[in-house]
């Protein structure tokens, strides 16, 4: 289930399938679920992840060496969706691995595995629109991205094609760097709200409790990804899950 509009901010976290390893992914996801995370992106690693910064780029390269692939992601999805029914799983991938698998076949397999949404950064709205009937039939929500430089008319078009949530890219650039949450950002959010009742997931640059506090009341979902992957990389999945748990606790205290 995706949150509804105006619900309290919640965290969406991340797994790069194959990073640090396929078995570790399963444990890490269990740790996130236990920490209280209710939205998790399962990222298919890709050789050329152009929308990602260095943390996720390197995680992708590692993941590919350790068996990460579309098939491995679908396999894992089947298990984690069953084991953690309280969590909503979203497939995140660049287009080519999905295209190569066969888009229609992939959508069916993802839905059958229990995946509820899909984020594909290099798949523009024009190319998604023809697939909407099929995706709606399967209950697989395309979560499209809006960026600070997207023209208003296009925001409307993207909002019409989005299901589940809209992914709001917080700033120019790639994943992994800091973001400012000032007035300009708030105007940007308000503009998107005019075009959609869907909950907003804010991503790119959500790295600290301060970021999360700043987003409370402004968005429904904060994508906490690169920082989590860095924790996982540097201190292991268990420690990363503990940090996530205390982060979620202090969010509740706010």
């Amino acid at each position, binding site marked *: 289930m995706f949150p509804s509009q105006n619900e309290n901010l919640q965290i969406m976290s991340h797994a790069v399938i194959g990073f640090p390893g396929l078995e570790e992914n399963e444990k890490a996801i269990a740790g996130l679920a236990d920490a209280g995370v209710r939205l998790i992106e399962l990222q298919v690693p*890709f*050789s*050329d*992840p*152009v*929308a*990602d*910064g260095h943390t996720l*780029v*390197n995680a992708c*390269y590692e993941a*590919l060496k350790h068996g990460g*692939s*579309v*098939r491995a992601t679908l396999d894992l999805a089947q298990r984690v969706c069953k084991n953690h029914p309280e969590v909503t799983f979203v497939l995140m991938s*660049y*287009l*080519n*691995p*999905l*295209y*190569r*698998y066969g888009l229609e076949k992939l959508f069916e397999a993802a839905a059958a595995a229990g995946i509820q949404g899909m984020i594909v*950064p*290099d*798949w*523009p709205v024009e*190319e998604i629109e023809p697939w909407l009937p099929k995706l709606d039939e399967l209950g697989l929500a395309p979560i*499209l*991205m*809006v*960026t*600070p*430089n*997207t*023209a208003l008319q*296009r925001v409307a078009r*993207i909002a019409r094609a989005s299901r589940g949530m809209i992914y709001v*890219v917080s700033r*120019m*650039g*790639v994943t992994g760097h800091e973001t400012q949450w000032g007035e300009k950002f708030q105007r940007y959010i308000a503009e998107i709200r005019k075009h959609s009742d869907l909950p907003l997931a804010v991503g790119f640059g959500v790295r600290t409790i301060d970021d999360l506090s700043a987003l409370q009341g402004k968005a429904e979902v904060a994508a906490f990804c690169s920082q989590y992957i860095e924790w996982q990389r540097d201190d292991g999945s268990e420690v990363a899950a503990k940090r996530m748990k205390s982060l979620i606790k202090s969010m509740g205290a706010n």
Partner: protein
Amino acid sequence: MIRSDNGYFGEFGGRFVPEILLPALTELEDLFFGLRDDPEFWQEYLTLTQEFSGRPTPLTPLRRLSKKLGGAQIWLKREDLNHSGAHKVNNVLGQGLLVQRMGKQRVIAETGAGQHGLATAIMAARLGLDATIYMGAEDIERQYSNVFWMRQLGSSVVGVTTGAQTLKEALDEALRDWAASVETTHYVLGTACGPAPFPELVSYFQSVISDEIKQQSMQQMGRLPDEIVACVGGGSNAMGAFGAFLENPEVTLVGVEAGGISLEDGQHSIRLSQDTGETGIAQGYKTLFLQNDDGQLGDTHSIAAGLDYVGVSPILAYLSQQGRVIPDSATDDEVTEAFSLLMKTEGIIPALESSHGLAGGFKRARQMKPEQNLVINLSGRGDKDIFTVARAFPQPEWTGFLQREAQRSSEILKQKGAH
């Protein structure tokens, strides 16, 4: 010149980029579509290439070599005589005119052989723009002389250390930079690849090559050539050499890709032939990519850094699917042989990229009749390849010289550091 159908050439092309890059691409497309049919704009471009780069470049008959091979008359289109030493500058000068119209103050570029990076650095210096050039760390080692000159010209050259550290990774990194800087920065894409409108736009500027070949062959041969051969990296010099001849079906067009060491995965860069490239969508566009069953882009190899690339122009993918362009390939060994043959027989030092065109062209010329004409696009000169060629033909005095030079420059560094 070929036109896209809404960014597509048959099933290839398109614009598959993160949303953040879209406004810049549509802005560029609107500007380009508004200018491309304007004869005054084309004249402005031609004047610039003439004043700054010495166009038109000659069409040189290879009399001795043609006789030696005993087949067709071979002609070279001398893109090596451009300022900066390769055809890359044609596209860069054209995009420079667009940058001035957009009013952007910074440019970025990806580069493999360093020729496109060098041309971009030259344009940036001339127009007073900031330039950042992305180049695979492996290619920096292979083409250091170009890196040296780019930096002397005032550009910053960033080594890319992800993946195989060649052109594909440099292009990824340029796209990442652009995502952050797109409002003030123009991405000078260096070949006929990437998201629309780049394949069409780059081919448009490069078509000056085939316009000239057409005129020159009428003057010098009295008719159109029978065949035109060009090497294919991303496909810009090939599209440049073929463009004006697409309307002349009697002229055979041949694109020569890098056969590398062998046909094994990772040892070549052949994308257009059957059994190698597969349709995919990456780096902003749909084309034939070398990739595995999971859709991961593959590693490539070529002795020529400029051909060591995983995708290919969607226009060439389409034209070869249609049978209009014939794909061929040449191995590293065939390439060094052709390189040497041209140098020793005609006194011209070709780039290793262009030597693929030579290897493919010489092979075909041998099978042709002396009254036939074959034009090879000599996309660049070989000065930049001095280190690679020295390795292909090892000589003790070269190694000795390098050791003495390394000694001298480290002494100079020490003295400067002491002050």
